[in-house]
């Protein structure tokens, strides 16, 4: 009786292992397909965000290249305001944070 139970148990294990083997392989294939799909989408995103694509789209929108003469220095006013604040005089660290 015990022996037949053991034999039955072993047989069940074998069947389960085979069934799981099918499932694992199916899942592996699905994972590969999805990974490929994800990769393809990421590639499309990278291509769409490539410098050449962005430049073409910018040109199509009528944008032009900025030059260094377009640079403006900001933040001097905010820094002054921060420095004059009572709390910032009391806590210089806070002033540095406010000015950045």
């Amino acid at each position, binding site marked *: 009786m015990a022996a037949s139970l053991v034999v039955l148990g072993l047989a069940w294990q074998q069947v389960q292992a085979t069934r799981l083997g099918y499932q694992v392989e199916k899942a592996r294939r699905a994972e590969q397909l999805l990974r490929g799909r994800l990769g393809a989408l990421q590639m499309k995103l990278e291509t769409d965000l490539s*410098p050449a694509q962005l430049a073409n789209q910018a040109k199509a929108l009528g944008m032009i290249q900025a030059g260094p003469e377009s640079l403006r220095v900001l933040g001097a006013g905010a820094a002054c305001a921060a420095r004059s604040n009572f709390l910032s005089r009391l806590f210089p660290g806070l002033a540095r944070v406010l000015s950045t």
Partner: protein
Amino acid sequence: MDTRLRLAIAASIALLPTLPLAVQLARFQVMEHRSLDTKASNEFNRSLEEVVPRADILDRNGKILAQSLQVWSAFLDKNMDVDCAVVGARVGPILHVLPLELSRRCKAPGRFMTLSKTLSYEQSQALAAARVEGVGIAPSQERFYPNGTLARGLLGQLSADGRGAAGVELAFESRLAGKPRRLKIIRDGAGRTIYKSLELDSPAPAPLKLTIDRNIQYTAEEALQDAADQYKMAAGFAVVQDPNNGEILAMASYPSNPLKNPLIQDTYEPGSTFKMITAAAALEEGAVKESDTFFCENGVYEISPGVVIHDHEPLGTANLASILEHSSNIGAAKVVERLGALRFYRYARAFGFANKSGVDLPGETAGEMKPLSDMTKVALATAGYGYGIGVSPLQMVDAYSAIASGGTLWEPELLKDGRKPVRVRRVVSEETARTLTAMLENVVEKGTGVPARIPGYRIAGKTGTARQLDLLTHTYSNSRYNASFAGFLPASRPRWSILIVISDPKGQYYGAQVAAPVFAKLGRRLLTAAAVLPDRAPLPLSSVRIGRGELRGLASGRGLAR
């Protein structure tokens, strides 16, 4: 007879036929178990080898320059029960191939037939769902370059078997290539796979990060393309380097060729851009002081009987700064004569010429320079202004970076992997570097490099215009030139060294006309993108004087740089 005895005999007779079965069972399960198990294992067990995808190549900001993706290919195994008409009718629409065409190909001799090498995700799903007898789907890898032709001369490409064949793909093959992963599987009677275990696992190789900046690379390539459209040049090169550590930020060539990188594999005669090295050597050795003057023979100098050196514009007496400003060949010849062949040769080598730089790319040339024993008076004089020597674009930009960095030559670096920059040697003192920087600024401010000016910024650089050597006649061409400009900016605290070389431009051919504007265009974009503030107050418009010579020069090209 006793009932029990009768039952026992009856049972024995009934069970007797099972005795041979039991004996056989014992024989198979116990005595021959091992050999039968091995046979069965060989019959059903398989080892499936998969290759882990090749590593990505990234730019310095983590943007993908190259990536391998899993793709699927479809094939037909005609040894299975294949009906070509069914294959054509059901597979053709999925692969966007005419059913009749597919049926016809199916009937061709040969066991296997490739249906498609790259299936999309949707196609692979549709094909799997179609369950056409004989049709199989196999995984494979394909290399993608999402930025198109950007940096392809640097990145290189793969061979048909997926191994690096040129460029970075070849140079770093061992780091990029994915290792195999092995799985133990069983195939059932219908050919389906049952996963058993992982025999050998291989992690995906880490991405390779380059020092290249994708945006700077694009800007450099765009500038070359614009120059190509305007000057119909045969070829063009642009290199951008960080002079503070040798990192290469852009390496652009026109036309782009994934199998060749001319910036390290080809040489060119640099012309007047080499005068910087002559001047640096002369200053460092004390052979020439800033105040020393040379008579530039008013533009015509017979250095040796029958050998005449010409300047593009007559110049009388000039100091070193003026020689660079006006790009006088005669002045440079006299400076190098005073310096001497040995010291000139030593400094040229110290700046990295006639040596491989050690950059991590295949096929680098060391360049060409006459051996010291062949340095005649004429050879030395011409070498002083950049003729008779072959340099690679990378060597030239590295030399200018040495001046920009205060006199230190850094090894060109292509990999951003946490390695410390390699300091090759100190070439000149900081004082010499500062003096030379001021002279190069003067070239841009008042001399032949004026078209490289960027208002509000201090630019240091030198123009170059060199006749190309005709390889058939071994004489210098009168119609084909290399126009170049080498420099760095902002001169007060250099962030970029840039070299522009335009080979065989049509129409205009001077470095000042052709290469300097490309330098300025690229420089402007770099300054804007990095939000670098001006390091000089802009000159009021009234103070900008354009001399008649410069105007004439701009029109005819004769007054400007050689």
